[in-house]
Structure formats: C-alpha cells, structure tokens
C-alpha cells in the first residue's frame, strides 16, 4: 500500500487531452461569466468602509443585531457571521455613512442598549476610499507582475514553448479559483489575493517537475515522438506530482480546518488553487507543450516550403 504508484503507471493522459481542454475551457468560461454577472463579495480592503467585529457571550441572531442597529439608523449595514456558533459577527458600514469614529460610537451605543455588557468588540478596521482604490489596483498589478516574471523565468530556463505552456494554465488556475469564490460568495480580500499569488508560484512547481522530466527525456531520445514522450514523462512523475501536492494540501487543510476564521478565505483559496494547479499541470500544461510545439514546427516548416516555392 505504501508503495502506491511505485510501478510506473501507463495512463494515456494525452489521449483525453481534447476532453481536458474542453473541461478547462468550460470551467474558465463559467468562472468568467460568474465573476462578471454575480461579481465578487469584495472585502473591506477593496471597498473601504468601517468593519466592526463583535463577539457576544450568548448566541445571537443576525436579526437581533440588525434590530439593535436600527436604533442608530445603521440597519442597512452588512452583517456577516464569523464561524458557525452564532456568537461572533462582523458589522460592515459603508463609507457613505460618515466618519468611522462616529460609526463605531453609534454601533457601540446600539449594541449596549440591546445587549448590555454581554459583548466584546474584537476588532475595528477602517479603510478610506483612497486606500481601497490603491489596493484594488495593486492586486491586479501584482498578479500580472507574477505572471510576467514567471513567463520570463521559465522562458529563460526552458524553451519558449514551455514558458507559454506553463503560464497559460496559471491564468486557468487563478480564474477558476476566483470564479469559485464568486460562486459561493466567499469574501475576496487582500489575503485571498496573496493566496492566489502563492498558488501561481506553487502550482508552477508541478508543471516544472514534469517539464524537467520532459526536458531530460528529450535529451535522451530527441523530440521525435513528443506526444508519447510527454505522456511517459507525466506517468513517470505521477507519484511525485500527487505526493508533493498532497503534502502541501495536508498543510493547507490543517490551516483551513483549525486555523481560525481569519485564515478561512486565505486557506480556501490555497486549497482550490493547489488542486486545480495540479490538475492543470497534467491536463493543460503538458498537452499544451505538445500542441504548441507542433503548431510552431508546422509554421516553421510551412514557411520553409513557401520560401522554396
């Protein structure tokens, strides 16, 4: 049992590459549709506003909190439960409602009136409009920066075909992760963006390990039967791909299950990202290398023929 995958499997991954492309394309399109129609539940980092995290001694319902906030005319604030024990909530008030210190006073007053001293303010965050806007931009820039840097690095270490083959799946991983976040309405904040950046760097690891093997095998046998060679490289590396992602997933899972509410979104993004990253390095990155190589070769030979004519 402990020696699973010790015998090199012989799965024809590339036989089903068309299906792989279709599934991935559909997933990406679906993600984009959800992102653009439903939109993100953006975190305070990006929207700006005041967020107050309150922990109650007794179980409390959202409606009770809303009723309390009605006393100070803040009943249309966003109230989100933190955890599942109905004792901790985040109250978020938009920038339009006035100065943050006044809002905090109002909320405190309202809660005091309704719940007496049986609550504790755990955290207050205020993000101004300027900062929210900046962080939104910085997030997009940083994702682009990572993709470009990776493209350059892989292009430098491998052939350009490999670089493109490595980076396209990263878009795929990032878009699907964001799509799932939009779908389930999980908050997208700075920590989630950080997780996605990490996934971009990490999910490339799997791809690189396979590429490395492909490169090694090309050195041994040449590019002649690339399809079969890539397929064999994936198979030879299958145990590695699964185990390296597996151990990292163990860590992420531990973080997701035990790490507390503050890290939930962050570890969820890592979880989704790493799973799709592993999938994409087998089903997207490797087939892409084969197809891109073919495409470019045909182009080169095509040009040559046209020249001779």
């Amino acid at each position, binding site marked *: 049992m402990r020696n699973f995958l010790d015998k090199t499997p012989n799965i024809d991954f590339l036989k089903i590459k068309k299906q792989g492309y279709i599934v991935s394309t559909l997933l990406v399109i679906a993600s984009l549709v959800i992102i653009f129609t439903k939109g993100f539940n953006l975190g305070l980092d990006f929207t700006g506003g005041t967020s107050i995290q309150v922990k109650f001694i007794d179980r409390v319902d959202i409606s009770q909190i809303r009723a309390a906030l009605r006393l100070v005319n803040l009943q249309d604030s966003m109230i989100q439960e933190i955890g599942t024990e109905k004792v901790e909530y985040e109250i978020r008030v938009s920038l339009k409602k006035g100065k943050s210190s006044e809002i905090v006073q109002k909320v405190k007053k309202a809660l005091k009136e309704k719940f007496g001293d049986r609550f504790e303010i755990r955290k207050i965050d205020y993000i101004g409009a300027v900062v929210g806007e900046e962080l939104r931009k910085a997030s997009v820039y940083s994702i682009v920066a990572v993709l470009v840097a990776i493209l350059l690095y892989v292009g430098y270490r491998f052939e350009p075909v490999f670089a493109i083959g490595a980076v396209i799946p990263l878009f795929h991983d990032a878009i699907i992760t964001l799509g799932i976040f939009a779908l389930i309405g999980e908050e997208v904040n700075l920590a989630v963006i950080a997780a996605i950046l990490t996934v971009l760097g990490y999910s490339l690891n799997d791809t690189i390990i396979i590429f490395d093997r492909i490169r090694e095998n090309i050195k041994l046998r040449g590019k002649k039967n690339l399809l079969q060679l890539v397929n064999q490289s994936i198979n*030879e590396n299958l145990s590695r791909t699964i185990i*390296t992602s597996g151990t990292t997933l163990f860590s992420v899972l531990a*973080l997701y299950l035990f790490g507390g509410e503050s890290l939930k979104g962050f570890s969820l993004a890592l979880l989704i990202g790493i799973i799709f990253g592993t999938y994409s390095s087998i089903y997207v990155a490797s087939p892409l290398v084969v197809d891109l190589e073919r495409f470019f070769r045909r182009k080169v030979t095509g040009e040559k023929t046209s020249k001779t004519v």
Partner: protein
Amino acid sequence: MKTDLKWKLIAVFAIFVATIYIVLSKPIKLGLDLQGGMSIVLEVDVDHVIKTQYKQLAKDIKKKLKENKIDVLSIKVLDEKLIISLLDPTLNEKAFKIIKENFPQVDVKVSDSILNVSFSQWELNRIKKLTVQQAVETIRNRIDEFGKLNANVSKLGERRILVEIPGVVDPDRAKAIIGKTAQLELLEVVDSAYSKEELLKRYPEGIPEGTRILEGIPEEINGQKVKEWFLVKDTPIVTGSQLKDARASVDSRGKPAVNFELTDEGASIFGEATAKLIGKRIAIVLDNKVVSAPVVRSRISKSGQITGDFTPEEAADLAVILRAGALPAPVHILEERVIGPTLGKDSIDKTLKAGIAALILVGLFMIWRYAISGFISVVALLFNGLLIWAAIVFLDITLTLPGIAGIILNIGMAVDANVIIFERIKEELKKGRTLRVAVEEGFKRAWDAILDAQITTLIAAFVLFQFGTGPLKGFAATLSIGTVTSIFTALFVTKLFLDIILGGKKSLKYAF
C-alpha cells in the same frame, strides 16, 4: 565514518547550536494582529504646507522688490505658483534678475506683462520630505510624552505615516492625540460679530488686506447657543513653536483648561505686542478655531491660558500635544485597524493547533511512504522550523497571523524537495541500481527541478512583499525564508543523515 561526513556533521551541529542560541536570545516580535493594538495610516497634507510656503514666498519677494524700488501691483497666490504683476511692467527684467539672485529655490518665468514664480522640483521635494519627516518626529514625541508604549512611528511611502501602538488602546483618544495638528496661534482681533454674514456686511469692499476670518467655538449665553466670528490679523503675534511648556489646569470658573508658557524670545515679542493692545482683544487660536478671545488688561509676556469646552482628559491631552509641538501640516486618516487582545490570542491558539496538525499529517505520511528516509526528512523538517524561527528573530521580522500561515504552509512545501528526491531514488532502485548509486543519482538529478520550483515560489513571494500591506508582508517573509532554508535542510541535511545511516551499505531494508 568518512572524514568529509564528519566535517559536514560538525558543520550542521554548529549551525544547530547557533540557531538555538539565536532562538533563545530574544523573543519573536509579534504583529498587532497577534498581540492586539492599533495601527493607523495617516496622509500628510503636504499641499497645505506648500501653499503656506507660497504665501510666505509672496511676502518675501514683495519685500525684496520694494527694497530695490520696484513696486508690485499684485501677487496672486495659487496652489502651484505665484503670479506677480508690477506697477511698471518695463521693470520685469530687473525684477526677474532680483528674484533669480535672491531666491535660488524658485523658477521664474517672464511672460507678457507678468512674472510666474514657482518652487523648483528639487525644492518641492525637499519641502515634502521635510514636512513628512517633521510630522513623524512630532507624532513620536507626542506618543513618547505618554510614556512607554512601544509604539512604532514610521514613514510609509512618500507622504504617509504608519503608527502602530501595541496593547489595549482607546482608539478615539489615540486618534485625537496623533491626528490633531495643534497649531497654536495668538492673533490680534480686528473685529468680531455673532454671525459670519454680519461680520462680512461691515466690509462691503472685502475684508482688509492682511486679515482673515476665523470661527469661534459655540458657547451658551443666557441659555442660547451662539458662535462668535472673528476678523483677525493674518500674521500671528506668536505661535506654538514659541511655546516652552503647557500644563493642564483649571480656569477661573473651575473648568478644565491648559496653561502655557512662552519661551524667552516669544515672551518678549508677546509682551511688546500686548503692551500696545491694552483694551483690545487677542484671539487664542487652535487649528484655525478661536478657542478664546480675552481682552488684554495689561501687558502679558510669559504665560497664557487656553479655555474651552474640555473634559479634564482632553485638557491633559491637549497639554501633551502642545508640549510635543504642532504637526507641520494637517494629517488625514486613511486606514485604521484596532485589534482587541483576545482576538490575537485566539489566533495564536488556533494556528498553533493547525501547525501541529499539519506537522503530524505530513510527518506521518512521509514516514509511512519513505520509512527511514521519511523519518530523516521529518527531522530535517523540524530543523527547518527552527531555522525559520531563528531567521525571524535574527532579521527582526514581525511575526503576523499570515506569517504563521506561511510557516504552516511551508511544512507541506519543504518536504516537496525530499519527495522529488526520494521518488527519484525509488525509480533508480527499480532500475536495479545499488542503494549508494541510486541515492547519489537521486540527489543529483532532482537538483534542477527543485531549484526551478523554489525560485518560482520565491518570485511570487517577492512580488507579494512589494505590494502587500503590513500583515501580508509577514506571510511573504516567512514563505521566502522557509523556501530558502528548506533547500538547505531538504538537500544538505537530509543527504548527510542518509549518508551516515546508509554508510557503505549496498542495501538496507526500509531505507525508502
């Protein structure tokens, strides 16, 4: 044991001892998200300072031109330049030369019949830098006046300031202390009225040159709320910079107030001025609001009193702020985070649990899959944890909640290198290689893949470090440290232990 192994072992042991020494030398600095506290990002309104500087420049230029017998028709003060028109435009060239010679910090252009004067880019940058620097120092002084708070005040980018105060903080009070400009001015009152309109009506041709209108603070007279408006001389007699001391006290009616004392220089200026103003009023102005406007009964030199609607605490805080000095420019709060102490403790407890869970899961898996080598990789993993800790202490990095997450994530990532190597060794063993050869081959061949993989993780961490805000920087930091240290533990340390255990053996049961 071979000599080179012995030396390697001694080296690893020495590193281990050094690591332990560093870890024990001082505790890890915890971020505010773990220990509770308050952090504020302020933006310094440097444009305000530049505008003030232009006003001053206008005065100085006018004076200089007058000395040279050039009469100025008007000087318009705009946000980013002065427009000067002379009574006799033929003197423009001469004025140009005079300004150029006497004010090296400005650029002058003559166009048509006017002179455009603006600060050079270099001067603007100097003003901005100086202003932010002064603001940082003033805030630091104010916080220091309150005693040991271990606060951190630092410049953030070009015109921002980050203030971090650990522990339990009253956010409103902290903001009042940090964010108040506290610009104290003593001004001569020209006129006053109980509404702005009434005051303006007295000057149908506009208020006299060199004066401005200021608002008083609301007060109750005979049960009616009223607010007085003042027309005051533009140039203050003395300002807060000429303050020697300020203490909380009570006024004649027993209400909280702040007594202040001027420096010797300030006192002589103020004494001279008040001697001429007996019977008239002077306005005590704090941040452009008249807090009181007493009538001068006799020559006042050294001390004065600020009264207003203060609580005793506010009076005490104001005294502190005045002692520490005024901010060179108004500041605006861009971002503010307050974290209660219980949340931080919860976070530490929870992530500790997650870390142990990750370690057990990963450790058990590695031993299950790779037996003896798996065990060695777990030892290396623990060593890696120790190295990360030491690096955090040594590099003086603040450990944040995402930072801990980075370490936990690293538990799963650090063994990746070992997995790649061990799987390769297994593969080589299958091909019928001896243990010795398979191990050598495994480490050699895996090197490229591992290096590439770690570098891409570092690329992501590096970008994150560049753009991330406070706590996320901690994640980028621990992630990169762990990635680097794991190369050492997963390759060098693991290889060393493997070599020692395997010795020259051709095969060993449960080696992999």
